[in-house]
């Protein structure tokens, strides 16, 4: 019982910080500046991109979700609050069309993915390939942290997704439930979110400067000194190394 009340304190602190940020952004009118007509029109398209790329990835049977590319795109082009709204509405609408149980409980996770991606872009972390990898990693960390309490308290630890087998394994090795769920998320999320961020960056690269200039945060995605191919290869190399590291960690856990 003591652990639960301690977690509730963390939860309340996190919510309070979020509300303060929201009020601050609203009062200083930073938020309103980002919500232009172009932003409002981009959001539905971004949600459709989320849904359809998720569908194609499912058809290709790739081991990732990639269902937040549109969210990261909006976050980079139109700021953190637009990104957060896109994420939340994305899960709401896709759940409405396909399966509410798989999507609606994770609305807060999508909200924070958009928020953190936007904050990273504001901090200049969406301007070259290696910085985008950092953005992806930070987004993944956030997603892992936010989805842990939902998985634990809403579903009881083991959710209806395939990665639950890892959680189940970790539980068998004697970990506590929060630790097991968090470790699972932390193993699964980085690969997914780093590829998401890199694909979103690739999409931005393919758009013309004239088109990008219409969005309120166009300066966030101005590339530094040309996003060259060498950089892309270095970034892909880093990601492959990260994947190998994750595989190594998993095999160590399963082997030991």
């Amino acid at each position, binding site marked *: 019982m003591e652990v639960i009340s301690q977690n509730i304190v963390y939860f309340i602190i996190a919510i309070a910080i979020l509300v303060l940020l929201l009020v601050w952004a609203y009062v200083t009118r930073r938020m309103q500046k980002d919500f232009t007509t172009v932003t409002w029109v981009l959001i539905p398209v971004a949600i459709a991109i989320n849904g359809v790329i998720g569908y194609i990835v499912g058809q290709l049977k790739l081991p990732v979700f990639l269902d937040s590319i549109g969210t990261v795109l909006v976050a980079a082009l139109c700021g953190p609050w637009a990104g957060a709204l896109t994420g939340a*509405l994305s899960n709401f609408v896709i759940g409405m069309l396909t399966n509410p149980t798989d999507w609606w409980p994770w609305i807060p996770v999508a909200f924070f993915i958009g928020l953190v991606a936007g904050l990273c872009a504001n901090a200049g972390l969406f301007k070259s390939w290696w910085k985008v990898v950092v953005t992806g990693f930070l987004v993944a960390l956030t997603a892992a942290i936010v989805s842990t309490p939902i998985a634990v308290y809403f579903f009881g630890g083991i959710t209806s997704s395939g990665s639950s087998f890892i959680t189940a394994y970790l539980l068998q090795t004697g970990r506590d439930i929060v630790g097991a769920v968090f470790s699972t998320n932390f193993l699964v999320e980085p690969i997914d979110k780093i590829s998401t961020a890199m694909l979103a960056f690739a999409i931005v690269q393919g758009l013309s400067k004239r088109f990008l200039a219409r969005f309120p945060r166009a300066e966030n995605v101005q590339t530094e000194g040309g996003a060259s191919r060498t950089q892309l290869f270095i970034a892909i190399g880093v990601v492959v190394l990260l994947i190998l590291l994750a595989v190594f960690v998993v095999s160590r856990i399963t082997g030991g």
Partner: protein
Amino acid sequence: MHDRLSFYYYRDSLLHRLNPLTKIALVFGLILVSFVSPYYWTSHLLVLVVIIPLIFVGRIGREYLNAALRIILPATAFLFVMQALFQPLEGEELFRLWFLHPTLESTLFAFRNAARVFAIASSFTIFLLTTHPRELMTDLTRRGMPPQIAYVIISTLQILPQMQAKAQTILAAQHSRGMDTQSTFLKRVGSLVPLVGPLVFGSLVEVEERAIAIEARGFTSSHVKTSLYDIPDTALDRALRWIFMGLAILSMALRIWLS
């Protein structure tokens, strides 16, 4: 595609006539009660005395059964089996098979969790089956939600099926010119770009035009807009909302009082 947005099915029933906000209150009340109630059987009881009667009141038996068999039951069954086998709860061992040894405690825990998820998933499904997205958005906008959010949701409901159809066309086209979408992992990763590229850039190009079009129709105007649809909000609706809120508060009070 025009009238088949989301799960909605038109029936002439009391549940369909209720105000959308009342149904939202019902869903939230159900979630709250099933989570905070201190009794073990609450979720099971909710399925029996709330969910099943609601299906009959809403006259959506066939549609609900379809959704339940296709989506809800497989997910909850998976949840139940996994949690019964792997929840680390000490207690009386039921049986032992290789490394699996579910205990009585973990099975009971899994049964309650599965019932809770089943009740919540069912309430979501009933809500979507009986509420037209347009009604929901009109009503929420009238109650102060920014109309831009209604625009986002309604237009996404239209764009998404269109883009999905486009994605299927592109997938079929690339198949016919011999793209490999079935074999090794690296080949499937490689085929992601030619599939996603045309789709994404094609849809982003439309953004600019659409922004000009809706701006010309007064999208950002702050005047109050009149609505074509009138969503009734009767005394029954208000009474029901108070009852749901009361029940939620009662279950919270019970939880605090009994613990």
